């Protein structure tokens, strides 16, 4: 496995106030990567900085250590030196496994959440555009994206909702085909209501209206969503033109009663109405949930959906871990093949160098040969060299495929004086 070093902090061990100190802004990432490379600690690196983690995946120089890379991160952010213990370090196979788990959402605060893959991709793209991605890092991240996609599609880990806002959003998808054309009405200006509404707005819902008992609070709240404000006394009329209603008022008794909704539904011509009641005490009379076309969910219903989703995700995470282990093994073998290609290339280069030296010497001794005769001699010697090397190369390839890669490559290297007599890059070009 490669000499990859990962250093980082995440939500599991590091409180948010310290994660904030370490978080890199968009404009700070590339200069940091450049300085890291200039300092001689890493050939290349990818910096992943999200609200839940700051991780640096580095392709280090031979003499660089994880401690030095942690120092670089801490210095760059002015992180308290006495909190060095918060950093975790993974190397080689463990670092690769960690990245696969992160990209697949298995290491996320919300198990299986999909946003992290996009964030990893952004981090990679930024480093690549800044010239900080070396070949091993490129291979690693491409593989991580592939693994994350496989995990997501084959286990379906992200399908079930695990938060109340996502549960509401997911249920809305069961009712409406295209949420971007739907209209939301927010009753009350509670925090929970804001969170749920934000989820909808971020997902493309454009038409939001707010109705609050205190008009001024409603105006202030509406500003966050670029929403229209409806006077409290007009909200029953607004129900007729709304598709999704999120209610979180502090009213002591229900404000949406069955007779009111019966009239509303007739006027709506029975178009589906999704009612999300996250107020305690509840804002919507329970009996309205039996009306045709009304889909009513209170906070407990949403929590139940979220809990079911979490249990399902945990089951799927077990399968995902097994997939990652298998992919890790494949990746290790792939890297071994990469090593094999290098070794075979070097051996061929070494053989070609001897072949060319000896050929020139022989042709010089043979004296006046016609071009055709020279060609015959050259081709004969080349064929001999290739035939002699064919058997050991075939054998070492077979051994690598049979998972004896390390031993096979070691013996192969020992058999040929690669390190002493060759300058591999030059000879590869020659070859």
């Amino acid at each position: 496995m490669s000499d990859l070093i990962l250093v980082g902090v995440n939500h599991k061990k590091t409180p948010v106030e310290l994660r904030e100190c370490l978080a890199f802004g968009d404009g700070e990432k590339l200069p940091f990567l450049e300085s890291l490379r200039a300092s001689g600690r890493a050939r290349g690196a990818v910096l992943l900085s999200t609200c839940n983690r700051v991780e640096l995946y580095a392709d280090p120089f031979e003499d660089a250590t994880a401690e030095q890379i942690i120092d670089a991160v801490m210095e760059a952010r002015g992180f308290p030196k006495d909190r060095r213990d918060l950093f975790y370090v993974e190397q080689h196979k463990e670092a690769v496994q960690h990245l696969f788990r992160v990209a697949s959402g298995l290491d996320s605060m919300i198990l299986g959440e999909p946003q992290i893959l996009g964030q990893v991709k952004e981090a990679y793209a930024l480093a690549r555009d800044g010239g900080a991605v070396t070949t091993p890092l490129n291979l690693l991240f491409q593989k991580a994206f592939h693994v994350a996609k496989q995990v997501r599609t084959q286990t379906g880990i992200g399908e079930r909702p695990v938060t109340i806002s996502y549960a509401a959003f997911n249920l809305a998808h069961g009712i409406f085909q295209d949420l971007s054309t739907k209209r939301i009405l927010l009753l009350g200006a509670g925090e929970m209501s804001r969170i749920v509404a934000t989820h909808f707005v971020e997902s493309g819902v454009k038409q939001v209206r707010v109705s609050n008992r205190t008009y001024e609070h409603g105006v202030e709240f509406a500003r966050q969503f670029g929403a229209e404000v409806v006077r409290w006394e007009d909200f029953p009329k607004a129900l007729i033109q709304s598709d999704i209603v999120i209610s979180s008022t502090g009213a002591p008794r229900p404000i949406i009663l069955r007779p009111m909704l019966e009239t509303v539904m007739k006027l709506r011509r029975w178009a589906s109405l999704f009612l999300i009641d996250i107020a305690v005490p509840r804002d919507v009379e329970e009996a309205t949930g039996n009306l045709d076309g009304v889909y009513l969910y209170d906070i407990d219903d949403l929590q139940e959906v979220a809990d079911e989703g979490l249990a399902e995700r945990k089951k799927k995470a077990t399968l995902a871990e097994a997939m990652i282990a298998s992919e890790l093994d494949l990746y290790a073998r792939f890297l071994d093949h990469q090593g094999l290609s290098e070794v075979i290339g070097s051996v061929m280069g070494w053989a070609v160098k001897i072949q060319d030296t000896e050929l020139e010497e022989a042709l010089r001794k043979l004296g006046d040969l016609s071009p055709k005769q020279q060609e015959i001699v050259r081709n004969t010697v080349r064929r001999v060299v290739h035939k002699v090397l064919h058997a050991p190369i075939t054998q070492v390839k077979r051994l690598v495929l049979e998972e004896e890669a390390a031993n096979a490559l070691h013996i192969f290297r020992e058999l040929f004086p690669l390190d002493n007599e060759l300058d591999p890059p030059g000879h590869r070009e020659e070859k």
Partner: protein
Amino acid sequence: MTMTGNFALFLYVSAMAFALLYGGFRQRILFVLTMVAAGAGFAMQTWQIAQIWSQRGYPPATNLMELFQLTAWAVLALYFLMYPLTRSKILVFFLMPLVNLCFLSGLLVSSHEASAEPKAFFFTAWFAVHIFLLVFGISFFFVSFLYAAIFIMQDHSLRHRHAPSHLPIPSLEEAERWSARLLLAGYPLFSLGMFSSILYGVLHGSKQNYRPGVLEAASILAWLILGVAGYGWLTAKVHPRRRSWFVVAGAALSVLIIIGIIWH
């Protein structure tokens, strides 16, 4: 059944197996395999229909077996036409069993009914128009029924507070929209198809194409039920769930008619 027909059946059964696996595992490759097998089966069956038509000089729809198999073909043709608009992959999970049911029902009744003797009516353009209007009308009803059933499933799931993701079926809105569109498009086709043969009989002073009986009365009843569902959609006076139940009831009655025919 001809060799081509057997081959088409084999491909349809394979497509159904892939479609059911797709419903369970939702791997894209399974959907692709479903489409390839169904497409190949469809091509085979089209070839078979064309061959028989050219040999006989009239469409192969003069007995129940042929009608069932032609309906299977039309349902599949409708799905292929609809797919660019709906992009509904999961529909194959419901559709392929229906296609196979139609095809196999044809085989089931084949031993009960000999091919009809060629009549003058078969060789007229009236017959071809009558058959294709009828068969496509029925196929529209069948796919409308699938969407209505999906609506009821989705409604049930939402009312029982489950996140609708075990089987990624279309949303209520999508299911309702397509069920309505197909019913409203199929209804005139089916009605025209049904009455074209009566009209032919009236115009040519022959009653041989219209024999009133229990089955015919049941067909009219199914036609009326579907008509009520269509009316509900057009006027939006009936809630979508009830409209969907009307469609399901109409389809159920059609199935009962088919069972009655086979039993008879």
